[in-house]
């Protein structure tokens, strides 16, 4: 008994109670549903119905051609998307941080704009550009050269869209690495007789390697768990990846919940493993690059070539942002989209339908705003508390809390949706079929996103201010509210903006959990795509883009924060 008392005292401390409460909350919202889903993989009946335990689902899955085909396809497009994304991101990062290319400081924001855009909308936009039958780029090539070289409805199309929309991840990580790199190593190499190319290959690249690896794994995991792009570009061709296979099992009648859960389990092991590897590399990178000194990076003069590099950056912005999203907006003003859009089909009827006739528009807009703003606020506050406990206290179990809080980053959205179906359909708490299940899914899945930015902000704040408040008699709640939170403001705002953007475009979790009255904009677009109402969905997609841009500009102006700081 005497041995237990010190531990009991530790557990009864306020900060320890906080740890237990938050850990319990995350366990209920993430670990519990995943556990129920895992149990479901050993059953053959829908959730809540009795069934003997067996390995039949695993046997059926591993012995099916469709599983190995979907797995192969997933790896193919993930590797391809990663290679393209890393190539684009690293090359742009090097040009922006290490060369004398003119105007790069003004181009940094446009270069990361794809980060804030929905890859799902990107895929939809690219169908209007590069479909072999109605893409306008093919139309131009056909008119000039008599060929239609591109087909977006293909694995290469998926690789292209994933690569370009995930390249900002690589750009941000690698440009950060390059900015923090000590230039004296390169200078030493140059003064020892190495030329610029040799210096880049033998000094710069190895130093960049951890950053490149980290961004490659980040993109690979994001590509593997992506649902919107392969569903738009592959479902009608029966070209499945693991996520679309899971969706397929849950959309047929009768649903095959167990097989969906079994495939989801495989994805979880796959993405979870990759995230562990990535975290290891990221930790190593911080150890290497984080320090008290700031560096002036070594800039390479390119001479005439700097205009080529400038063209490369401008070309990226045109191809990835202006052309697809301009086309997407244009589609919303045509009755029909084709390779040679006819002016006689210009119309406002799509907008009229969406704004004044289609009742789901305003419901979805209201729900998306509620979830994005409300959910982001809740997630940021929870992240702030977790960050404070982990960084500032000696609470019992704080490291376990940190691990549990970052666990959801390994769970793809679609898998969390499957897990929630298994866990909450039969729950006595009536959240299934309501907007609250979406809120819980969003917040619990994306807490790690804001947690990282808030933790790093908190680490930079001197503890002395909080200690002064404590010594002056303020309780820990008062200290947190009056001292810590205001100092954390930049991190909180950055976290909020990041989460807002993520929530408003979220599709993979929402597509399984929404119901009548809890539709969101991305799901509405998906349904309209499914219904063949392309111009109407383009109108809703344009609304989503406008909404995102307005909120981002508003918050960055009110809180005086640079958009690039949000994502670093």
């Amino acid at each position, binding site marked *: 008994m005497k041995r237990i008392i010190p531990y009991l005292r530790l557990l009864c401390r306020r900060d320890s109670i906080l740890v237990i409460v938050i850990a319990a909350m995350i366990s209920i919202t993430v670990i519990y549903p995943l556990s129920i889903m895992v149990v479901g993989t050993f059953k053959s009946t829908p959730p809540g119905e009795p069934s003997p335990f067996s390995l039949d689902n695993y046997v059926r899955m591993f012995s099916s051609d469709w599983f190995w085909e979907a797995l192969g396809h997933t790896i193919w497009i993930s590797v391809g998307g990663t290679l393209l994304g890393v190539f684009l991101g690293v090359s742009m990062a090097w040009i922006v941080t290490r060369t004398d290319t003119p105007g790069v400081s003004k181009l940094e924001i446009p270069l990361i704009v794809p980060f804030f855009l929905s890859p799902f909308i990107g895929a939809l936009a690219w169908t209007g550009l590069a479909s072999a039958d109605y893409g306008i780029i093919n139309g131009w090539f056909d008119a000039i050269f008599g060929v239609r070289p591109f087909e977006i409805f293909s694995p290469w199309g998926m690789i292209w869209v994933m690569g370009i929309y995930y390249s900002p991840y690589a750009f941000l990580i690698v440009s950060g690495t390059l900015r923090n790199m000590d230039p004296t190593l390169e200078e030493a190499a140059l003064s020892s007789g190495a030329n610029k190319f040799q210096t880049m290959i033998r000094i710069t690249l190895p130093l960049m390697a951890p950053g490149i690896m980290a961004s490659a794994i980040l993109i690979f995991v994001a590509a593997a768990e992506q649902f919107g792009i392969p569903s738009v570009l592959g479902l009608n061709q029966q070209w499945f990846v693991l996520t679309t296979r899971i969706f397929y099992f*849950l959309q047929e*009648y009768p649903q095959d919940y167990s097989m969906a859960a079994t495939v989801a389990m495989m994805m979880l092991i796959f993405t979870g493993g990759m995230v562990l590897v990535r975290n290891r590399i990221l930790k190593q990178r911080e150890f290497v690059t984080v320090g008290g000194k700031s560096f002036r990076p070594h800039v390479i003069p390119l001479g005439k070539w700097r205009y080529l590099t400038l063209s490369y950056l401008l070309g990226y912005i045109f191809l990835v942002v202006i052309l697809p999203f301009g086309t997407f907006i244009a589609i919303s003003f045509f009755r029909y989209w084709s390779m040679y859009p006819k002016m006689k089909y210009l119309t406002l009827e799509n907008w009229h339908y969406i704004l004044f006739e*289609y009742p789901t528009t305003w419901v979805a807009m209201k729900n998306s705003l509620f979830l994005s703003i409300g959910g982001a606020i809740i997630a940021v506050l929870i992240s702030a508390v977790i960050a404070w406990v982990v960084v500032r206290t000696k609470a019992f179990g704080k490291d376990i809390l940190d691990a549990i809080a970052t666990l959801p980053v390994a769970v793809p959205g679609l898998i969390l949706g499957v897990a929630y179906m298994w866990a909450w359909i*039969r729950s006595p708490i009536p959240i*299934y079929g309501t907007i609250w299940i979406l809120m819980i899914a969003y917040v619990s899945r994306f807490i790690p996103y804001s947690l990282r930015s808030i933790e790093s902000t908190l680490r930079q704040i001197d503890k002395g201010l909080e200690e002064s408040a404590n010594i002056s008699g303020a309780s820990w709640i008062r200290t947190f509210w009056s001292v810590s939170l205001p100092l954390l403001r930049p991190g909180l705002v950055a976290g909020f903006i990041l989460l807002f953007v993520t929530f408003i475009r979220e599709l993979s979790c929402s597509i399984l959990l929404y119901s009548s009255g809890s539709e969101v904009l991305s799901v509405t677009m998906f349904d309209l795509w499914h219904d*063949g109402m392309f111009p109407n969905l383009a109108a809703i997609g344009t609304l989503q883009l406008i909404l995102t841009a307005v909120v981002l500009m508003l918050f960055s102006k009110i809180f005086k924060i640079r958009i690039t700081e949000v994502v670093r």
Partner: protein
Amino acid sequence: MDSKKNLLGFNRREFLKVTGAVGGATLLGINPFDALTAGAAAEPMDSVTLAAQEKLYAAAKKEGEVTLYQSSATQAGHALGKAFMKKYPGVKCNVYRGGSTKCHVKFDTERRAGKDICDVLHTSLYPAFIKYRGDGVLMKYASPQAKYYRDDWTDPEYYAPVRFTTMAISWNTDLVKDAEAPRTWAETAAICKDKRWFGKISIGDPHGGATSLTQLYSCVVKWGDTAWDWWRAYGEANAGTFASHGAMDKEMMAGKYPLSLEQLDYRINKAMEKKLPVNSHYPSEGVAVAPGPAGINAKAPHPNAAKLLYNYFLSSEGCQAFQKGGYSNTGRKSGGIKWNYLPSMSELNIIDIDYGQMEKDMKGLLKKFDDVFGAGKKKSRG
């Protein structure tokens, strides 16, 4: 039967009469489209229905709302909802639109969770309604309007076919000449050997669509292994598969899949009414039909509003609002709106199937589809 030929088969006198009527109507500010296609005005509700509705309306207003899950065109559900709310203010009508399969998946998931949201269900998966009736999933309610519906697809105390859908071959006339388009199901498989059609034809996905499932089942029932050979041929021709015929429509108009081997009658009708470059053909050797019943959820959260909506949906007025929005057929004996490009049942050679047996055979049918069509697809990818 070729829909376009019907219109062009008018003689000169009839053609002049119609043109004169359209022109005159336009001058008077009447929508000539309504004049041509509306046929008779909606029949008023009989006194029994009116009395029932009055009683239900008072109770429904206390409930405040009703939710319909439906699988016809989006505009059809909205048109019905709008008309219902206009007639019965104070009772909000929420309309959820999904494919038949999606509606049943949502309905069953919510039912399983004990969180019933749907009050009235309408889809084209008739076998599921037969099963629901047997399992006590549908409310036992004898609508006074049920007697106006086809006896073979109606269970007067449980459901009635507010709609039925037939499937036809259709094509984009800007890209496919009428002479090139197949006219029989056997021809649809024969053209698959021609490289010209590789990756240019579309079919429905029976996993995701009730009408596609009905099409497949009907052909297998009538032609057995020969039908399976056709689906293998479609796979080898790298046919696109669509759970949503709306998406199939869009891709046909956009030119990606200019020939559709299984398009829905109401979508063809809408395209042709809107003078889009579309033509179609209903093969004379046999056409599948998917009855589209509506029924009330036994655990409807708003039971009185559900009955109110159900009766309205089945009434001539509600049925016509739904038809107009969706350009569709109806299972009403009187036939409802007469469309220019939508053949009636009597004009078609309908394949007769046992929908109850279809429900039992569904799982095996889908497995065989995956094997046969999948093998064809695999071959097409080399």
